[in-house]
């Protein structure tokens, strides 16, 4: 290891980096989300908005308009919250479109998607979450329900489920 302190040379030289700009330091989470966003690959049907402008990438909204499956023609809005500890912590994602009838989304907008909780890994990115959401709307999973009524209907009476979803989309949820 290096010798940093010596008995002789006690007086520390003044720091060369004189006036530090008053700029807020960016957190590790912010550095990583800059990379995620700069590499964002918006699949067809997706769009993204930054409500707080170009300098706040920690809060954004993603809109999904499925082009296949039960939910074709609907518009679903998701709020993303990224912590300073991203990607150690998963992004917090909520469905902001209310009362969506979906087996894996409850009426408060909580989403049951494994990579958002128990299976989140730091190698995943915002792209992975978007693929996950896309998949959830292409292929709703009645086996692991968050909305039990929706799951039961999808399992027992897929035609009725389709009808309820159609009606919801027509009403704009």
């Amino acid at each position, binding site marked *: 290891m290096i010798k940093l302190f010596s008995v002789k040379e006690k007086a520390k030289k003044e*720091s060369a980096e004189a006036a530090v700009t008053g700029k807020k330091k960016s957190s590790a989470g912010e550095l990583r989300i800059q990379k995620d966003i700069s590499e964002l690959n918006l699949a067809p049907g997706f769009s993204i908005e930054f409500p707080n402008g170009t*300098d706040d990438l920690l809060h954004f909204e993603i809109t999904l308009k499925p082009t296949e499956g039960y939910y074709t023609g609907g518009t679903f809005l998701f709020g993303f919250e990224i912590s300073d500890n991203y990607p150690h912590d998963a992004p917090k994602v909520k469905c902001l479109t209310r009362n969506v009838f979906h087996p894996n989304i409850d009426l408060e907008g909580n989403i049951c998607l494994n990579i958002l909780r*128990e299976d989140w890994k730091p190698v995943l990115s915002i792209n992975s979450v978007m693929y996950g959401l896309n998949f959830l709307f292409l292929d709703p999973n009645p086996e692991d329900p968050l909305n039990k009524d929706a799951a039961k209907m999808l399992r027992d009476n897929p035609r009725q489920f389709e009808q309820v979803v159609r009606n919801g989309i027509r009403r704009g949820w």
Partner: protein
Amino acid sequence: MSSGNNNNEVAMAQPPSRFEDVLHVLKRPGALAGDGFDADSGDDVMEMMQDSISLLVIGAGGLGCELLKDLALLGFQNMTVVDMDTIDVSNLNRQFLFRPADVGKPKAVVAAEKVNSRVQGCRVTPKHARVEELSLDFYRQFHVWVLGLDSVEARSYVNSVACSLLEYDEDGNVDPSSIKPMVDGGTEGFKGHARVIYPGMTPCFQCTLWLFPPQTKYPLCTLAETPRTAAHCIEYAHLIAWPRDRPDDEFDADNPEHMLWMFEQASSRAATFGIPGVTPQLTSGVVKNIIPAIASTNAIVASMCATEVLKIVTMCLRGMDNYTMYMGGYGVYTHVASYERDPQCIVCGAGIAIKTRADSTLASFRDALTSDSGGDGALPTDLRGKVTSPSISHGSSNLYMAHGPLEPLTRANLSKSLRELLFAEADMECERRTVTLMLNDKALAAPVRLRVTVE
């Protein structure tokens, strides 16, 4: 009377120094001593420890109390302790600087008072604050930082501060005088670690973030539909019932009414599903993510940390290289591992030095980087010509995002000068400034740090 007797009397009259035992170590040469250690100047080194070295102790909890005690008894006299917390009754079993009468007072203040009153000559200064509230100049005044923290977040933050204080010479070598060595301790039940970080030289906290296990998380659908354990019922109350039934209340785990509500919700859910085991203790344990703290683990880890501080400051022994894990659950097991730096670490990497003119536009700066010469040879050869469409950020401000919806919003910046984009009005007179920019590109596995000197 002979002079020999006289000496004896003087020796009898003066009790041995309080730090006699530390002096033994500082005055003895040895094969394991660090580079430049001089046993003949042991007294001077002791004096330096006492008078010139100032330590920053971050955290005054279980580890912090032990650290302050250990460091004070080693002879360190100038210390500042930072902690944002106040003392809780449940701390008293292991945070031995606190007494029942201290409950509710700031930990840092009480810890400093207790150490100052018990160890003569010791001057511990308390700071009742969050690590995020303290300025770079505050952090800069200390020689060694000792961390007794309980969260990944706080460690990450302190680590990023230490890395941001680093200065580099023209060749990209780190200036040793800008390095703030950090000694980090951590405990969880019977397990713990102690590690030494020389930011810019040895792996920083971010380089080895993967060492921390992810928090236990349950699938939301299990909580909502198929709970099987008491913890599932408590997490249901915490994550689903609270936001549903009390959407306007911010949940506060230190509010007894909130915790009672949580416990009752969890109990009634457990009753519905016939699950035993929901207790107020378990409820607060799950909600606050508490792992029981073991006093002896804290003592062992803190003693390893304090010893490393002594080694760093005096070089009396070569330091730990660079991580020690401790397992005390079944017997005692320790293992020292030498972790390596992540060459692509986004926090401690030296980055690439580039010189440019303040009046050049962002577009021309960016074009130079993407040219085959890679900014006049600034980029390493393996990146030249590979970086084709980079995004550039300065701290939180995204100067240019090359893809997606932010491209049109940041495009106007391309025609602005670097002076305009990077410096506030007041700095305009400065002739020469170094700023750190981050470069992102699909060809890069991680963001690349650019140390841009603007003239």
